């Protein structure tokens, strides 16, 4: 039953009851206070959905009570005349008291309803809030889990990398205390990880390098650089558990998170590479010596044998020529021309022999050879050539003097071909450390990088190798427009055993 229908039914019941009561009221005599029952109608009215219903019904009741008093048949005899009035007044009072109650109740109900509604709204709001918070929490947790997984993945990857890396990877904190020591490091240094964790990096360095290494790391820690390749030129050395040292290639990087700085050092044993390099170098040296030797042999063969025999032929012919009797003048002239041609051949052979190997180097020594070279160069090119050199006499080993001679020869050839110089200065000096050769020209210079890229090389590579074959250092400075300077430093004989070394750094 719908609330609408219920309402109508309620109104119907009330109408019927009111009509019945009114009829009863006007038909019964005064002593029966049947009008009091209007209160029942008001009570029923309180069941209505409408708050005004009890007051309307009360009004109707009040009016009908008054009308009932007027239309009523005369009072029962013996009854006090004020009594029916009093009854009716009572009824009306009751009616309105009920209305008041009903109104009060309705008010209370409304208040309750409002309170209820408010509460509900609040609950809803709260629930909403909670849901939001919950969602936030869920997403946060998801995110956290994802991060965690990513972290685990990255950790795993890192661990994997650390494990399979051939290189030694060592992490140390700002106090140079080792905090990570990978398998590569274990293999390289021979320590177990737990033996070195918490120890100082010094453990892994030969004693003589410790101070410098620590200074180096401090400088690096303060510097703006985040990664640094150590020992690009010089060697770094590590110390194994068994006390052996090894040459290494190292790079270092630093990571600063908040207050903490950590260093990651990656180290590779380059003993084998060094060995290979040494072998290569010694092979190159041997090759050069062999080449030089062979050239010397061919040169000697040409100069001292073929050429001597040619010269002798000339001598013999001269002797024959003088023995030719005067009448055979034509024959004598033939002899002379033959002798001249032989002499020319002899000159050519001598020149070829000289190109193979300058015998002057063996016969008169480096000083004379260089002087001859410079004079010939100056004469052929018109370039002023100044030679300042110490006379080493016989003291210089053949390989070193050959090397110096060839370097000068090659440099002068470069000057002639490329430099457009007006002046060349050549200095050869010696002290306890080095034999120093410096060749400087006033020419146009060149871009070293470009020459390197072009692979024209200017014979620079072979010059360098030649110098290295006698344990020397080769250095070239050239800039467009600034001339070229070649510097060769060779340790004097007997001093080439020492090696240039340096600590981590």
């Amino acid at each position, binding site marked *: 039953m719908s609330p609408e229908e219920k309402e109508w039914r309620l109104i119907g019941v009330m109408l019927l009851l009111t009509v019945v009561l009114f009829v009863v009221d006007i038909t019964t005599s005064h002593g029966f206070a049947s009008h009091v029952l209007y209160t029942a109608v008001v009570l029923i009215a309180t069941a209505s959905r409408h708050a005004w219903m009890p007051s309307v019904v009360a009004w109707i009741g009040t009016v009908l009570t008054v009308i009932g008093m007027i239309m009523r048949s005369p009072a029962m005899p013996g009854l006090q005349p004020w009594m029916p009035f009093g009854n009716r007044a009572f009824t009306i009072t009751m009616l309105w008291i009920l209305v008041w109650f009903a109104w009060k109740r309705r008010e209370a109900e409304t208040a309750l309803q409002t309170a209820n509604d408010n509460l509900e709204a609040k609950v809803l709001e709260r629930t909403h809030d909670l849901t939001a918070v919950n969602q936030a929490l869920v997403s946060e947790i998801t995110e956290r889990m994802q991060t965690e997984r990513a972290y685990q993945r990255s950790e795993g990857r890192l661990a994997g990398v650390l494990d399979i890396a051939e290189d030694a990877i060592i992490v140390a904190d700002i106090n140079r205390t080792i905090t990570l020591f990978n398998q590569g490091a274990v293999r390289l240094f021979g320590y177990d990880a737990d033996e070195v964790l918490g120890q100082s990096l010094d453990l892994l360095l030969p004693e003589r390098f410790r101070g410098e290494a620590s200074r180096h790391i401090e400088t690096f820690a303060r510097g703006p650089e985040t990664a640094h390749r150590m020992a690009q030129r010089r060697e770094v050395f590590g110390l194994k558990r068994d006390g052996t040292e090894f040459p290494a290639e190292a790079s270092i990087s630093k990571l600063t998170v908040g207050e903490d700085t950590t260093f990651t050092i990656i180290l590779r044993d380059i003993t084998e590479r060094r060995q290979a390099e040494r072998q290569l170098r010694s092979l190159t040296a041997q090759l050069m010596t062999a080449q030089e030797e062979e050239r010397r042999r061919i040169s*000697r063969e040409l*100069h*001292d*044998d073929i*050429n*001597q*025999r*040619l*010269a*002798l032929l*000339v*001598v*013999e*012919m*001269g*002797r024959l020529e*003088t023995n030719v009797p005067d009448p055979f003048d034509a024959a004598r002239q033939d002899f002379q021309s033959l002798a001249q041609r*032989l*002499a020319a051949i*002899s000159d050519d052979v*001598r020149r070829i022999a000289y190109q193979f190997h300058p*015998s*002057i180097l*063996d*016969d*008169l020594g480096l000083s*004379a*050879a260089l*002087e*001859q070279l410079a*004079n010939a160069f100056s*004469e052929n090119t018109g370039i*002023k050539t*100044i030679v*300042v050199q*110490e006379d080493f006499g016989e003291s210089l080993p053949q390989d070193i003097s050959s090397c110096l001679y060839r370097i000068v020869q090659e440099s002068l050839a470069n000057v002639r071909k490329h430099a457009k110089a007006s002046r060349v*200065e*050549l*200095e050869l*000096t*010696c*002290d*306890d*450390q080095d034999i*120093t050769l*410096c060749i*400087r020209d006033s020419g146009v210079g060149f871009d070293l990088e470009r020459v390197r890229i072009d692979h024209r090389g200017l014979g620079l590579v072979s010059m360098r190798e030649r110098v290295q074959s006698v344990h020397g250092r080769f250095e070239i400075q050239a800039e467009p427009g600034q001339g070229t300077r070649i510097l060769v430093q060779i340790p004097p004989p007997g001093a080439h055993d020492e090696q240039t070394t340096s600590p981590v750094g």
Partner: protein
Amino acid sequence: MNKPRVLLADDHTLVLDGFQKLLETHCELVGTAEDGRAVVEAAERLKPDLVLLDIAMPRLNGIEAARKLKKQHPDMKVIFVTMHADAPYIKAAFKAGASGYLLKRSAGQELIQAIQVVMKGEFYLTPLITKGVISGFLDPTQIHVPAVEDLTARQREILQLVAEGYSAKEIASQLKTSHRTVEFHKAKIMEQLHLHSTTDLVKFAMAHGLVTGL
């Protein structure tokens, strides 16, 4: 005039044979040697008037051999008969004490003449050797005035510092080189400029504007 007593040194038997034939009418050949040490020993033993030497010889080259011979027997004459026509060889030969120098290929015409000239106490140099070579022997001071241009950049630096009163040690540390190298350069500069003292160096530097007075 007596035939000069000649010792012949060459590592080529063919050459020895050939020269023997050339010499036999005018000289008395007292012996032959095939290397530098042998010739020094033979000269000691045979006391020849004259030694004919080749430059390229095993064990001890001709230049060294000549130096030893002249040291032990200053009167003994030495003539080089060789393949080398280059100035440094000729310079080295005469510096070592030789009195004559000729080329093998002209020995047929010149050897006897050379021996005669040298035995008279004069010098002989083969005409085959070019004029350019001879000019090389000339004392450079006669045709060349020493100048700043003949110094290398490094030498000029050192000369300037010397003139400014720095010691060799201070110069060495300034130029990042060794004390010895600085001393060498200083000596070499004096030699090149024909100067004899540090005072001369200072004067030269001032005269050439390398330093503006003290």
